[in-house]
């Protein structure tokens, strides 16, 4: 976006929800302002911007944090002041190690900022150490520290020494639009990792066209045309082990596409996928059907294909899906892998994550019939041999409970995300954290429900995995709590864009549908109405 385009975007923008944030940078922010407002408008948001006075970043870091979200645009000299071009070259040589140690202290201050996101501009730095090699170590060290903060790295080309000398703004006029796009995109980016990676097969999982060239004509090994496909596969294997669900869609016949997976020669095996779909339906229809059967949100899907027409078809039919082109050149592979890693990255990997593919495969095989209701449903569920194990996680390992609370969108009472330390504080104050594990005749579904009950009896967090919807786990859980004398009195409810399944739950007897805030919860009445649910489960406590 250039300057006049930004003006026109703003002129035609009728306004949208506020996007309030502080752009924290040591340089002059004003040239960026119109571009940030225009970029926010492109996302239908009205930017409400605050800036720091010129060159006061360091003072700001020493002050208290406030409620306003902060976006830090960092340059090397924000971490190492001696590297600031505007102050010239220090008379004596400086040591890279000392400078990096000081930079780490600044990073520690930055890390303390709650509600902050970071962007790093890897501008060139002046020679400080007297040794080109050490200067390089210093530059990379500063960058490494910034990336360690979780910073988004901008292109070094965006730095303009001329602009920095002229106005104190480190970004050249020609790059202001691109930088604003990165900043607003980073600010709006969701923390929730994507869940399902859907990949094309021909020219993506392997080189060549399996239907035309046969098993011997395609490439997937670490050599020749198959090399980049091999590397792509190895990343998918790792993602699958970290809990990412993999699916393949291909316009082919099933008997044609399965042999490479069955050959045992590829990094990916058939069991790494929740589904390999080969049909001649549009790819969007294949994905829609799969997502529906897995009970996932469409915006948790990433689709990779080499064919721009297929990508466009999916992007048009399913706008919530993130579409990524598989590169036609080897040079594009690093960017592809970095993007996938960012989209699917998660801080911790639990046993649940590692077993997720198997759980979802089981889900596809033993899905509750969608049309089953009433007596049919009860009969079906009774035949599953379900065991509900309830755990008190108020002490000990609660990693899975925290993860469940923070990534569940649909059956979620209020959408609030909790840090582990916030939960720790609540528990110290007397709250109780309960979870439930479900097992049935097909095996374990893992820990699928989490409930945080405050000391005053308010359920502050209540989430349940969508993979056990329709199994009446929520009924069995609260009936079991009531039987054990645990009787929460209300639920902190907040409607979100995604929690309609929870709103359905609020229509149950003993609850009050449709009211925001604190919803009274008569557990005795609820349990009485759902006493039959207890007959569906073998309930245990630990």
């Amino acid at each position, binding site marked *: 976006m*250039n*300057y*006049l385009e930004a*003006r026109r975007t703003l002129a035609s923008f009728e306004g949208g929800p506020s996007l309030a944030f502080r752009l924290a940078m040591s340089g*002059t922010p*004003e*040239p960026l302002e119109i*571009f940030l407002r225009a970029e926010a408008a492109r996302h239908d948001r009205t930017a409400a911007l605050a800036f720091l006075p010129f060159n006061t970043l360091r003072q700001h870091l020493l002050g208290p944090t406030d409620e306003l979200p902060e976006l830090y645009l960092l340059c090397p000299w924000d971490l190492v002041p001696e590297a600031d071009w505007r102050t010239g070259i220090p008379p004596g040589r400086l040591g890279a190690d000392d400078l990096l140690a000081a930079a780490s202290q600044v990073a520690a201050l930055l890390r303390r900022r709650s509600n902050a996101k970071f962007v790093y501009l890897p501008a060139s730095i002046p020679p400080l150490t007297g040794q080109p090699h050490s200067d390089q170590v210093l530059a990379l060290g500063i960058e490494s520290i910034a990336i360690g903060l979780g910073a988004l790295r901008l292109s070094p080309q965006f730095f*303009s020494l*001329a*602009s920095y*000398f*002229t*106005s104190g*703004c480190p970004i*050249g*006029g*020609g790059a*202001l*639009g691109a930088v604003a796009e990165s900043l607003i995109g980073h600010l709006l980016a969701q923390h929730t990792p994507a869940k399902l990676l859907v990949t094309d097969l021909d020219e993506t999982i392997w080189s060549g066209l399996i239907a035309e060239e046969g098993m011997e004509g395609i490439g997937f090994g670490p050599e020749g045309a198959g090399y980049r496909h091999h590397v792509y596969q190895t990343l998918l294997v790792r993602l699958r082990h970290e809990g990412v669900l993999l699916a393949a869609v291909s316009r082919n016949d099933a008997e044609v596409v399965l042999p490479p997976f069955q050959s045992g020669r590829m990094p990916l095996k058939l069991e790494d996928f929740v589904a390999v779909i080969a049909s001649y339906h549009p790819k969007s229809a294949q994905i829609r059907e799969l997502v529906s059967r897995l009970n996932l949100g469409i915006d948790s899907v990433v689709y990779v294909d080499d064919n721009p027409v297929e990508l466009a078809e999916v992007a048009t039919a399913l706008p919530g899906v993130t579409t990524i082109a598989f590169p036609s050149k080897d040079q594009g592979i690093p960017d592809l892998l970095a993007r996938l890693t960012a989209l699917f990255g998660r801080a911790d990997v639990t046993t649940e994550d590692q077993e997720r593919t198997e759980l979802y495969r089981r889900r596809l095989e033993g899905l509750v019939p969608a049309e089953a209701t009433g007596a049919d449903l009860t009969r079906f569920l009774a035949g599953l041999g379900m065991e509900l194990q309830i755990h008190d996680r108020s002490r000990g390992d609660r990693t899975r409970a925290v993860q469940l609370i923070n990534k569940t969108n649909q059956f979620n009472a209020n959408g609030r995300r909790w840090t582990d330390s916030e939960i720790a504080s609540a528990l110290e104050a007397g709250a109780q954290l309960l979870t439930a594990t479900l097992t049935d005749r097909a095996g374990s579904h893992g820990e699928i429900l989490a409930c945080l009950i405050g000391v005053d009896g308010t359920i502050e967090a209540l989430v349940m995995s969508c993979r056990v919807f329709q199994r009446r786990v929520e009924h069995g859980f609260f009936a079991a709590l009531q039987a054990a004398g645990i009787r929460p009195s209300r639920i902190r409810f907040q409607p979100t864009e995604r929690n309609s399944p929870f709103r359905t739950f609020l229509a149950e007897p003993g609850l009050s549908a449709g009211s925001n805030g604190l919803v009274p919860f008569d557990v005795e009445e609820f349990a009485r109405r759902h006493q039959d649910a207890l007959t569906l489960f073998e309930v245990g406590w630990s």
Partner: protein
Amino acid sequence: MTELSKKLDEIFRAVLDLPASREVRSVARGSEERWDSLAHTLMVAAVESEFGIEIDVADSLSLGSYSEVESYLRNRLGPA
């Protein structure tokens, strides 16, 4: 009017917030009180953005009127 002049007119009017009645091509830094140091910074950034160039600090300081900016751009970009 050339494409360059049209864009430059629009930039000057926007950055300096000039009324429609004001003749933009006679604007000079010494005679237009809205052309302060911040406006100059925004002007240079807008020109860089719109014309895809980078302006060195020495050149930036020499741009004190509409006609000087226009002349500078014609030299940098060649005949429009």
